[in-house]
């Protein structure tokens, strides 16, 4: 079943910068997509179009055959509630604590959780940052912030996990931990879209590799 379809999608940032050129891509339910390419290839732009932080200049994106252009803002929030997004720049609420950042995400996902606090602490333990739970996010190191961003995305058990360079600031042990979580997700039939140029991840043969270069889709392996 096609989950997300990109049809002749182009994105041009004013005045002339072509971030994506005529992209055609189909993502099926349960796919593990590795989006790769050099810096500036258009990976982040493509992800932003999928979670609709950006709109395409031309072309159309479909979610379960519903065109994004027809999705109203209220429906958009339902769509995003089913996504788990790991941002390259973390996008955390800097004035809130680690615990509060994760709880907001969990509450917004509207998933029933018996004991929210327990669940959050379980994840924090798993990533070795439980002692930082009541610290403000802005007091954490880059790697710790990245871990909070990852927990925030995966704790809501989303239908689609979108990760933009999730391992940039992490140590090898944490990278392996995260990749294991991604694999578990995928095994449960959930879709993972991972943008990276980290050779460690690329060599692991996790799924379908989609290569981008200067905004163009080079191969769909």
């Amino acid at each position, binding site marked *: 079943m096609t989950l997300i379809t990109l049809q002749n999608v182009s994105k041009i940032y004013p005045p002339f910068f072509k971030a994506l050129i005529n992209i055609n891509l189909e993502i099926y339910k349960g796919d593990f997509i590795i989006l790769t390419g050099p810096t500036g290839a258009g990976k982040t732009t493509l992800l932003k179009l999928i*979670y*609709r*932080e950006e709109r395409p200049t031309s072309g159309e994106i479909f979610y379960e055959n519903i065109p994004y252009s027809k999705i109203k*803002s*209220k429906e*958009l*929030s*339902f*769509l*995003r*509630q*089913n*996504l788990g*997004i790991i941002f390259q720049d973390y*996008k*955390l*609420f*800097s*004035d*809130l604590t680690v615990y*509060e950042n994760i*709880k*907001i*995400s969990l*509450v*917004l*996902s*509207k998933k029933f959780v018996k004991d929210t606090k327990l669940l959050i602490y379980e994840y924090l333990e798993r990533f070795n940052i439980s002692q930082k739970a009541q610290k403000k996010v802005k007091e954490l190191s880059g790697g710790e912030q990245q871990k909070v961003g990852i927990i*925030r995305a995966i704790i809501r058990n989303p239908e689609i996990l979108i990760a933009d360079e999730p391992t940039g600031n992490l140590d090898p042990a944490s990278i392996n931990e995260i990749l294991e979580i991604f694999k578990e997700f995928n095994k449960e039939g959930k879709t993972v879209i991972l943008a990276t140029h980290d050779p460690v991840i690329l060599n692991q043969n996790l799924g379908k590799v989609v290569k981008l270069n200067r905004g163009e889709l080079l191969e769909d392996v």
Partner: protein
Amino acid sequence: MFKYLSKIELKQSIFYYLFLFIFFFFWNFFSLFIVFFYLNIQNLIQTYEDKLPINLLIFSETNPLNILNLSSEIKKIPYVKNIVVISPEELLEKSKKDFPSEILKVFSKEELKSQFPYILKIYPSSIKDYPALKAQLSLLTKTNSNIEISEPGFFKLIYFAYFFKLGFLVLAITWTLFYLIFLYFLNTLINSYLKSQTQIFLLLGGTLKKFKFLRFLFVGLVLIAAFIYSALVYFYISDSLSSIIPLFKTYPNFSQEYHLLYFGIYIFLTIFLLPWLTIIVSYKNYEI
């Protein structure tokens, strides 16, 4: 959820709320004074409008028929509402009590009467017709040296008050627009300051509804607090003014129902409706 969003909103924009408090304190204070002066001037005009004529003094005229003819001629002037004729006899009778007794002994009644003029009290149709009527009557004084114009000293004050009244209306509209523009820009400023945080919330699947509601709540609370403080200062000053100048009354007068109603409408508009509208407008096209 509201607890966390409140934290985000307040920590990032406490300075703007403080600014709003100070702004609204003074804005409301001056608004109440605009209304205070407007209503007092209106009150003053209503009190004196019908009571202040232009007096035409006609000396050396002994024939009442000539006075009647002149009076009917003046009545034809379009700005004239009414004319009251006071004869020298009536004037003498009214003034007698103020005369020194020696004068009354030395001069006969006829001699005294001859010194008094006929007075035509000419009431204008409206206070704004006063200059035109005065110009027409001045023509009479130019052609006849026995006729003089006498106007009450504060007639001019009332006349200018009439135009001040109109000026206040323009001021009130401009003042309200100023408030609306200020609220809109303040909201836009807070929105842009909180943009990154709001975007994260939206990307996580939240909606703007909660942010709008919270903004309205905070703006409303700040406005209510500023309103209470500035209203207290206003009532203190206006009460003091009213006790010094008895012509002035404090508005609103809470014993009058319609004053209460207008005051309620004012509060509803400034604290609830206008802020809510500006919040909605400032968030337009904000969705990502």
